[in-house]
């Protein structure tokens, strides 16, 4: 077996490489591009229906007739939503497990396909 000193010497005595002459320029090009890039525009096209809905909700809360609105029966609502939610959650869990199993399968396949020198 190789002794400790030989191993130390082999690992410690490594000569450095010199970055290529264009390295700094290349980094600075990327940095300047990053610095001068315009910020991502806000996705108004996707957001406006939600924004409009929110405004309508606010207006209805502000100006709607609260007197006519009955007090919501949260217990009845809860009783109605639980069976629906149970089915939905079960479906979502099943899909999550299926996706996880598929991801693991793909990862293992990719790993097995990697060739080493």
């Amino acid at each position, binding site marked *: 077996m190789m002794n400790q000193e030989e191993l130390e010497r082999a690992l*410690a005595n*490594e000569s450095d490489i*010199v*970055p290529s002459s264009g390295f700094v320029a290349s980094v600075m090009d990327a940095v300047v591009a990053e610095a001068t890039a315009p910020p991502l525009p806000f996705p108004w096209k996707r957001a406006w229906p939600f924004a409009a809905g929110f405004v309508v909700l606010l207006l209805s809360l502000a100006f709607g007739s609260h007197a006519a609105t009955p007090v919501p029966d949260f217990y009845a609502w809860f009783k109605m939503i639980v069976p629906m939610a149970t089915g939905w959650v079960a479906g979502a869990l099943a899909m999550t497990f299926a996706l996880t199993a598929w991801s693991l399968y793909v990862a293992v396949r990719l790993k097995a396909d990697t060739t080493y*020198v």
Partner: protein
Amino acid sequence: MSAEEDEADVARVLAGDVSAFETIVRRWQHPLVNLAYRFCRDRGRAEDMAQEAFLRAYRSLASWRRDAAFSTWLFALATNLYRSEIRRLPPLSAPLDEGVATLDRRAAELIVPIVDEEQRDRVIRRAVLALPPKYRDVLTLFYFHGKDIAASAASLGVPQGTVKARLSRGRDILRSKLPKLLGN
């Protein structure tokens, strides 16, 4: 390389002077490219990885708290990036993460007649890449930082005791596999 210079340049960059970042790149290009090279053993890829490290450093410059030296922060950031890059796309001779068994298997494939000491040392350094990542990273950082345990621990974000333990185990694994690797 003085900490004051780094601090002054960072302050200028944060004040909006992008060109001040060039001084930082010039000052740190050599160590960052060399650290990347030790992780991937490919000059072109090392420069790409170092460039990405500088770019990330530029983006998160404001998050550098002055409680640690700029170099410590920069090396930790670069180390994190290099490790995830190597995990994403392993270097030519390194396995993904199959531990010692892989080193055994690959040792048999890598047997080469050793002509001289320099060639042997190259094979040894390349074999470090085939170690399980936690040993590979510690060995790489330790020798890069001139055998400085504290600097290696800071770059990896682990306690110094962990570095010492992994260093010892990593060397043991490497030493036990080298005879096969070197064709002895």
